[in-house]
């Protein structure tokens, strides 16, 4: 079954344990996290921005086989063929979420690989903001969550302006 990460930004507290867990799992350093947390004040959403495995990095990559898709999980993986010297970091430029990086030490691109099937960010999140779910279910989860939040607060209170705009499209 193809998998996906479901992010409920409304719940995010900004603790960055997802980033920490991601870094520790892969490199034991903080800065190379593939999860990115954009915290913007007042009127904007906040929460983790994760790789949604959209494949734009693969599309942009000029080296055949440097980024391949794991058919089981649906994650796009960087292979040993990746060689940042022979490209201009097209994958980084193509990523709309800013979640793929070139690691100068490892001399290759790094990106979310679902930690081989048990994502560290999901395990680390204290507030269940990031969930590892079947690829088909985020829409259902999203609708359920919207209903929950509406019961608790008025929509205007629960959602910031930008997310309200997004809601209209749901």
């Amino acid at each position: 079954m193809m998998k996906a990460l479901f992010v409920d930004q409304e719940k995010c507290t900004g603790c960055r344990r997802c980033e920490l867990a991601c870094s520790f799992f892969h490199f034991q350093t903080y800065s190379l996290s593939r999860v990115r947390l954009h915290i913007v004040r007042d009127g904007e959403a906040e929460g983790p921005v994760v790789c949604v495995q959209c494949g734009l990095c693969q599309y942009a990559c000029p080296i055949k086989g440097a980024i391949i898709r794991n058919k089981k999980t649906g994650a796009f993986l960087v292979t040993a063929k990746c060689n940042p010297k022979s490209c201009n970091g097209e994958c980084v430029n193509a990523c709309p979420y800013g979640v793929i990086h070139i690691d100068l030490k490892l001399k290759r691109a790094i990106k979310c690989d679902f930690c081989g099937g048990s994502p560290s960010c999901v395990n680390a999140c204290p507030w269940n903001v990031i969930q590892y779910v079947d690829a088909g279910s985020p829409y259902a989860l999203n609708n359920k969550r919207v209903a929950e939040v509406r019961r608790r607060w008025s929509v205007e209170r629960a959602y910031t302006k930008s997310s309200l705009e997004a809601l209209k499209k749901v």
Partner: protein
Amino acid sequence: MVLYSYAGKILRVNLSKKTIKAEDTRKDVAQLLLGGNGYAAKILWDELKPGVDPLSPENKIVLMTGPITGTGAPGSGFWEACFKSPLTGVWGESACGGWWGPMLKFAGFDGIIIEGASKDPVYLWVHDGEAEIKPAEGIWGQTVPKTEEAVRKEIGVPQARVLSIGPAGEKLVRFAGIAVDLERYAGRKGGGALLGSKKVKAVAVYGEKEIPIAKPAEYGKALKECEQAVYASLNSGGGFPNGTLGGYDGCNQFGDLPTKYGETGSWEAVSDLYVNFVNKYLLKNRACFGCMQACGRVSRVEEGPFATPVYGGPEYETTAGFTTFALQKDIEPVIKANYLCNIYGLDTISTSHMIAFAMICYEKGLITKKDTDGLEVKWGDANVMINLIEKIAYREGFGDLLAEGVRRAAEKIGGDAQKIALHVKGLEMPYHDPRAGKTQAIEYGTSNTGMDHFHAHETLDVECYGADLGLIPFGLPDPKTIDRFSEDPSKASIAKLVMDWGTVADALVICKFHQYVNLGPDKYAKLLSLATGWKIDGWELLKIGDRIFNLGRAFNVREGIRRKDDMLPPRIMQPATTGSTKGVGITNYEGMLNEFYKLEEWDENGIPKPEKLKRLGLDDVASYIASLKA
């Protein structure tokens, strides 16, 4: 040589000479005093001359992280500001959460020493092992959010973390705080005024450096264990997932919520305040770096005279200060008042304290409309509160007097004002009532920072709320067996243990709320050992707490502090008039204090004995104290 888990460098910024130097973090000092308030105490003991004016260029401010800051350890998102306090004139320290501390370490520094004073406004930009002093004329006078925005824009790094002061710091309001991200504050004791006196508007930090860990794989495992311990506690109702304001009703029931400028410890009128806040104004929780508890609150008032934008707050202390302490019963004015304090850069505890102080002085006729710029400063008047906050921040009219803090203001007002004023060593009383748990009285009296509930720890939490802080294996009696109203001198041993452990938190630079969630000295000692490669256990950690507490005391003794300065204000010792502490006063404070002195090995005048200081490894401090006696 790698000093594991430390960044290895400390920045020294001299604003008079406009020089910046990166010094090595000293291993001997780190092993003796860890980091945070310990390391900073050593710097200030060595480098400050006794008696310097806190607002003169001779004073220094040390912004410090600790050995496990930014490593993912629970509660490790903190940093400490240490200085000689402009408010009290003695040892001053403020702890603050958020992300600034870890980011300083990722930028390659364990701390920043700021000395001298600049003629023109400046801000510091610290990034990737480098630092610059940059002009700040354009942002001088701005509020905190505008400052942060302008600095981030100018340096071009939106992810940078910015510490800054508001107009209150610039105007040298003696209790101006240091803000981070408009929601986290190194609030108390006037660090903001000190930065203002040095003309430092902000310190921006960003970096991506690694923090070397001695045993990374084992450290990761130990982190996992700690994480599980925290979850276990949170799942069993411990910790602060409801924020500190979640404890408001409990404090009210225990008589721990100072009311009407400390006349009593509870007020029925506010019994539904917390529920009202959650239902109407709370948007979500927010966490500091790496925190699982996320005690921070995000709230706003949408419309009306107290409308605010979305921001971080309010906490328990702020709410208590702007409600019961001043007999005001609504939450909306609190959210507004908190927001204003945040943008102007004011400590909410001292600000609300000063407003309630003005109210009681007005009631008793010690001040009149003539003194208050025509304002009727009546109990519970929310509009007066809001008005006074701005006056204090800009030192306008009556606000100029209040901006001096309660000790100086009471001296100027004269008459009975000095008898009424609630402070120890010049620091205004925060919002926990020592009549509800008598050990708190010892902490208020002997804390190095003055009447302070959280440096070194909140002992009321043990007596009233049954927190064991992981200290039972280290000699703490089962909290359930402690009689909170007893004033037996043996209470001094509880105070000593809890305060030493609290001091360790400020040296490791961790959030004290993580001492409530199954993380005792042993767990942190294990983390510290694996991170640094040193061998250290829980007992050793407590000894370090003892060492730092006594170093702070020696600093204060050098500034002239003696037993008379450890006395509590009479108003808070008088019997409370209502609630669960009705009729309860404090009658044997001196008995408890004597016992505390004995345990600390201080002489009858409150001076640490040189033998003890030597035993703690503070030889030079011991020699100074010995010379003082001779």
